[in-house]
Every structure is written in C-alpha cells, then in structure tokens.
C-alpha cells in the first residue's frame, strides 16, 4: 500500500506569499525612510562638532570655517533624496546635494560647495570629514533600526 501524504493550509501560505509580494516594497520604503532619518540626524550631530574660527583670508597655510559657514550648514541640514524604486530595491541618498544657495559675506554661494570645502578640505581650508565620520558610525545604527522595522512589519502582517 503506497504511503499517503496530506498537507493542509497551502491556500493560506499562498495567500500570505501574495500579500508579502504586494506589501514588501511599501515596508522596505518605510524602513529606508527610518534609516535615512537616522543618518540625517547623525550628520547633523557631526556638523555641530565643526571647529570654527573668525573669517580671515588664508594666504599661506590653512584656515578653519567661519561661524557663518557653520551656521549655513546647520540651517540647511542633510536632506533625504526622492526614493528610487526600481525592480527589487529601494534606494535613496542623504546629503546636501539639493540644499540650494545661501548668502555668505554678501555673495550668493551654493551650499553643497560650502559643505564640500569643509568636509573634504581645500588648499586653504582644513579638512573636517564630518559626513564620512557620520556615515561610518551611523550606518550600523541605521541598519539595526531598519531591520527591526522590517521584522515588526512582517510580524504584524502574519497576525
């Protein structure tokens, strides 16, 4: 006599998988938003530690950013780019790329260039890599938060 096997609940599993397929991109986007928020806060925390000195032209050697330049960076804040949902992934970037312009010493200057000069340094400005440092220390925190968010969302879905 042949053995017989019976599996119950295939309909439920298939239903759950279908639901997952539909809801996964939304859950991923929510988690990514959470992670991007953490990175943005981390970069701001880094921007607060920028050392400053009153503005002077550095003919020789290097100068530090002026308090006005630091204020512009703090005011602008690191923004979160529009989410790029392509295929199986969701991407975004956090930074100052679309921060616009600011008035500095009577001239209008693009904020990304000011941030770049502080972060990477120039021939006349001391480098203070606050964004690289924030990315280094903040990404484990952001990843942990995103993982928790995704796990919670799937638990709620399975109820």
């Amino acid at each position: 006599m042949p053995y017989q096997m019976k599996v119950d609940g295939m309909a439920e599993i298939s239903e759950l998988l279908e639901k997952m397929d539909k809801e996964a991109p939304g859950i991923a986007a929510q988690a990514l938003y959470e992670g991007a928020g953490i990175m943005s806060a981390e970069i701001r925390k880094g921007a607060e530690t920028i050392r400053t000195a009153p503005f002077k032209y550095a003919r020789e050697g290097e100068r530090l950013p002026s308090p006005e330049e630091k204020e512009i960076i703090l005011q602008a804040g690191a923004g979160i780019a529009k989410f790029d949902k392509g295929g199986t992934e969701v991407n975004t970037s956090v930074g100052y790329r679309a921060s616009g312009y600011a008035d500095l010493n009577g001239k209008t200057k693009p904020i990304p260039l000011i941030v770049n000069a502080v972060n990477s340094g120039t021939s006349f400005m001391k480098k203070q890599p606050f964004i690289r440092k924030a990315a280094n220390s903040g990404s484990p925190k952001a990843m942990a938060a995103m993982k928790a968010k995704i796990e919670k969302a799937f638990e709620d879905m399975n109820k």
Partner: protein
Amino acid sequence: MPSEYEALVAALKLTSIPFAEYGWKTRPEGAYGVVQLDFEAGSLNGDGAKADRAWEGSVDLFYPKLSDRTDLIDEVEETLAEVVGDSWSLNSTQYETGTGLFHVEWVFQCMDTPEDEPEVIPDAVPDEG
C-alpha cells in the same frame, strides 16, 4: 600612531610629490600632497580589550596643471596599493576656481600591525620509558 600609517607616510615622502602631514604652513609651488589620520574606523574586541584597531585617514593631492594628472595620480595610487593593500578608495575629485588647483582625495584604512614575533617552538619532551 598605527605602524601602517607610519609606513604610508614614509612611502609617500619618497615619491616625487612633496607630502606633509596634517597640512602645510607654507604651501609649496606646484603639486603637493597632504596625508592625515581622521578617526577610528572600528575595532575587533576580545578578552575585554581592543584586539585589532582600524583607523581611517585621507590623502589629498593638489596640482595646478591638468597635464600632470595621470602621472601624479598613478604615483599616489601605487604607493597606497603597496602599503595598505586594497583598503583604499578614491573619495572625490574637485576643482578650486579661486586658486585654479585640482584636488583629488583618497580615503584609506590602516591597522596597527605589530612586527611578527618569531614563533617559539617548545622543546620536544622526550618520551619517557
């Protein structure tokens, strides 16, 4: 100072580009470079102590003539590859309108590698009996 960083600084100072640590007091004419350690990148911990620490640092190259580009960049990249292996990357390239200098920035990670201690082989214990 991590030993790999010290080796890198020594190797960069042997290149044809003048290199200084943490910036110049008086900028040299022509192309020049800056090398510095930025922050601790991470560590492996064991036995309640830091076992392996890694630092992140950067190499900056400034050059006034675009035609010098490939030679100078190759020289720095070859030195980086020689000392820190593959743990470096090109971080940014910029142009300064005010001074007309081109600026290339590399990021590297280095570790404190202690000199290899000679392995002590215990004396063979003669079999008893």
